[in-house]
Each structure stands twice: as C-alpha cells, then as structure tokens.
C-alpha cells in the first residue's frame, strides 16, 4: 500500500472502502449508512492550524453550498475525539470531524492518504456518489488548502441538483 510521500489516491470508479469512525466520544459514523446521497471526505493533517486559512473552518462557512447538493461533508484526521471536540467547539464547526485515531490512520491508509513519515493524513479530497462509488479525488500539497471549487465541480458532474446558492 502506498503510504509514503508519493501517495496515489484511489481513482474515480473505485468502490469507496467502508469504515466506521467516531465523530464524538459516543457516536460512530459508518460510511455505508450514508448511501443515497453524495459524501465528501476531506482528509486533513491536523486540527488547530491557523484559523483564517484553515480548511475545515473554511468548509464550515461553505456548508450551505454543499447542502444545496444534498451532500454530507466529513473531515477526517488522526486527532482523537476529544481534540476534535475542542477544535469543533472553538471554531463552531457544524459538520462531523472523524477520528482516525486507533489504529492510527487505518482509514487514511485505505484511502491512500496517510503520510507515514509525519504520521498524519494527507490533505486529500474524495467525492463519493450515492451508491458508494468514488467519483472524484484530489491530492493537495500538504501545505496548501485546496479550497472547495473542485468539490463543487465534482458535485455538478454527479448531476445532482444544486449549485444555485
């Protein structure tokens, strides 16, 4: 499995590997339970990067754009649930942050999104359709927040309604 600096993401047409991860200390999110609507997975290295350019904080402001497509957005990092909870509370994050904490980075690895050297997730994006098939993926340089334009273009390509926000 590629888990070095040269990760190659799972490609469109691939079945999205299923997973169950904690979104809060007592809540589990199972990917296959979300069938029927598009899912956006945003792997990211860590909570608590500077706010005005933080990818999760930015996506939080864009939730209405995503929800216009009926899409579910989920952030995933190797931070623990309590860390996510504090980060989400401090920044009023209104979407689930999943904790790929134990075994560390296991889900990130199945999505070819684990940086073994640093022990954190890549900054990678997946758009999964309502049938659980990957329709778009994008690996960003780890230091560069990819924004949301690629996600919205991918949702447009799914042909689901939305985008008129």
């Amino acid at each position: 499995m590629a888990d070095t600096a040269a990760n190659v993401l799972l490609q469109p047409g691939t079945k999205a590997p299923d997973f169950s991860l904690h979104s809060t200390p007592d809540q589990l999110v199972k990917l296959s339970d979300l069938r029927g609507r598009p899912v956006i997975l945003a792997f990211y290295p860590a909570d608590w990067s500077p706010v005005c350019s933080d990818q999760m904080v930015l996506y939080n402001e864009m939730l209405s754009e995503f929800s216009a497509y009926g899409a579910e957005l989920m952030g995933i990092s190797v931070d623990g649930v309590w860390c996510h909870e504090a980060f989400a509370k401090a920044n009023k994050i209104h979407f689930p942050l999943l904790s790929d904490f134990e075994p560390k980075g296991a889900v990130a690895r199945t999505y070819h999104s684990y940086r073994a050297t640093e022990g954190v997730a890549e900054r990678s994006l997946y758009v999964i359709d309502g049938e659980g098939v990957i329709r778009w993926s994008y690996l960003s340089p780890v230091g560069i927040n990819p924004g949301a334009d690629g996600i919205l273009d991918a949702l447009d390509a799914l042909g689901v309604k939305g985008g008129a926000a």
Partner: protein
Amino acid sequence: MSLRPPVSASDHHLGPLDAPLQLVEYGDYECPYCGALFPEIAAIRQAFGDNLCFVFRHFPLSEAHPHAERAAEMAEAAASEGKFWQMHEVLFQNQDALDDESLVAYGEQLGLSQAAIRSAFDGSREQHVRHDFTGGVRSGVNGTPSLFINGTRYDGAQDAQSIADALAAAG
C-alpha cells in the same frame, strides 16, 4: 484555480479596469491577516500605478468572525453613496471595533445618509456580499485573504515584495 466570475465594472476596483495586471483580493474585515495585508496592498498599488487594477471582493468568515458579515454590508452601504474605499480603509484600521454601534459611527463619520447606514442592517446588502462569497468559493478561495493575479490564485507569501515579484512575473 481561476477566477469566476472575471473582474468587471461591477467590482470595487482601484486603477483602470483594462490595466495589464489585475490583483483581486477576497477578504474579510475582521480577519487579522487581511488587516496585515492592507498596507502591503497600498505599497503595491503605489509601485505599479496605472499598470495595476486592484479589486476587493467580500469573503466574510462569519462563523469565525462574528462582525465580518455586517462590516462587509456596511462597506456596501458606503458604496451606494460612492464611499466604498473610504469605508474599506476605516474598517481595516479599526478591526478591533466592528460591532454594530461602531459601524454606525463610521458611517456617520463618512457622512453617509441615515438610509444608507440602515441598509447595512436590514439585509438589503446581503445579496452583494453573498454573490462575492459564492464566486470566491467557485474560484478556489482557500482562506482569507486569497489573492488572484490575472485570474490565477496566488499561493505565495503575502508581503508586498513577494506579491510584487509575482505581479512582475505575470506582466
């Protein structure tokens, strides 16, 4: 990552619209990094003169910055009476005082009509701000401030010299 929609006469701009260089900022009046960029932009504008068109579009991070949306609406209210850039400067110079009462005071200091000041609070300026924001999302804005040079997102350092170098390379 390219600018959607492109710069037009409906944008707030300084310098000629047909200048060979275009610098677009997506910014938030409560964002400290945007505040830090403000004097850098002034230096860049001075260096490039009429070769540069500078455009400001709103990208308020309202969850992170509770006063950002209202401040953007006050800038639009000022624009309705031809004072966008004056208000823009006042807001960036008073980033720690952007509560409603302060915004009204800035409007009065700039001589805005009461109707214009009220329009910052009654929702009538929301659409313009939302339009900027949505265009920013579609253009790949990835935080504030986000800069675009001739339509392409600039990911470099945000000091005057680095931005000027990138502009010179684009020109």
